[in-house]
């Protein structure tokens, strides 16, 4: 509304300006005239313009107020109409909204029910799977223990056998060592006996045998060498 008023004022002022402009142009076209006449004419014209402008302004103001009143009235009517429409729409929207909400709440309830049912089914399935898994695990553990027991008994049997074998080998080796040591020691004893005998004979015969006997023994040795054809 204020824009409309301002627009009207601007049109009025433009009209007044154009009017004055054409007046002045007409004055210029009429040719050279005397200054005083024209001044008086101009003044007259200006006064006329001013009065016209004032009239227009007054008209405009009147129109403006009328328009204002009309606009106000229309605005009020529009506002009332709008309010009625709004109320109508609002109630329908409210009804629609309520129905939608009810619909939505029904759907939510349904969804909740189905979800709960799904959860329940899931729970049952999970329990079933859990039980099945437990059973499977028990079975596998039982099989594992059986295999372990079997392997352990096999391993123990093998270990026992190997231990027995190695012990027997050790015993045999030890016996062999003992026997060889015994043989070796007996051999040493025999050597010692012979050495002792030779030493004893050397000591005794040196004293007991005279030169003649020694010579006789040498003769015997030489005859043996002759018999063996050692000296040829």
């Amino acid at each position, binding site marked *: 509304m204020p824009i409309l008023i301002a627009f009207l004022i601007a049109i009025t002022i433009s009209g007044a300006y154009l009017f004055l402009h054409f007046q002045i142009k007409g004055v210029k076209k009429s040719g050279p005239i005397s200054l005083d006449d024209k001044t008086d004419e101009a003044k007259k014209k200006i006064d006329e313009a001013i009065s016209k402008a004032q009239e227009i302004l007054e008209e405009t103001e009147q129109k403006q107020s009328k328009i204002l009143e009309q606009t106000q009235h229309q605005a009020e009517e529009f506002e009332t109409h709008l309010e009625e429409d709004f109320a109508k729409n609002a109630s329908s929207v409210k009804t629609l909204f309520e129905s939608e909400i009810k619909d939505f709440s029904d759907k939510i309830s349904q969804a909740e029910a189905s979800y709960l049912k799904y959860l329940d089914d899931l729970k049952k399935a999970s329990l079933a799977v859990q039980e099945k898994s437990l059973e499977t695990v028990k079975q596998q553990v039982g099989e594992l223990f059986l295999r372990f027991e079997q392997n352990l008994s096999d391993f123990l049997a093998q270990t026992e056998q190997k231990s027995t074998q190695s012990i027997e080998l050790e015993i045999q080796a030890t016996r062999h060592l003992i026997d060889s040591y015994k043989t070796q020691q007996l051999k040493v004893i025999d050597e010692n006996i012979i050495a002792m005998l030779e030493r004893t004979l050397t000591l005794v015969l040196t004293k007991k045998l005279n*030169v003649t006997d020694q010579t006789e023994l040498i003769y015997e*040795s030489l005859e043996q060498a002759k018999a063996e054809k050692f000296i040829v």
Partner: protein
Amino acid sequence: MHQETIKKILDLLTSHSKTTHEASRYIMLLKSYLEAEYFNSPLDLNELNDAEKAWIKTLGEENISQTISKDSLGEILKEVKSAVEKIDILVLFTAVELTTEGYNEVIKKVRSLTNKHLLIDFRLDPTLVAGCSLIWKGVYKDYSLKSRIEKNRDLILSQFKAYINTYA
């Protein structure tokens, strides 16, 4: 012609000397003796040992100066030397040291058994217990009581152990 003389000298040498060194020594003594006989010069016996004196005595007993002429002395001695170098040496180990007579008896015995000229090198080895061992032409053979004990070792040991078991 000189073979008989040489053989006789070698017999005497091998019956008295033991090693080639001794034989060489005895040949020198033979030469000195014969020179003393031929030229009527005295032979100094003071520096000689008993064996050498016995050798000189044997030469006198065998009348060796009659067998070898003055002219052939050098030749004969040369041949005797070369013959002595070729003689085989018998190394004889005894368990005890014999007397001179004992050694001579052994030399005689060896000569009678072998019937050849050889020199005997007597050495001492008390470990032989009794009897002797010989080295002939680089080969050693033990004929001593020790070797007999070794040969009958098992028998001796079995007898010994039986004795021990009986009386232990």
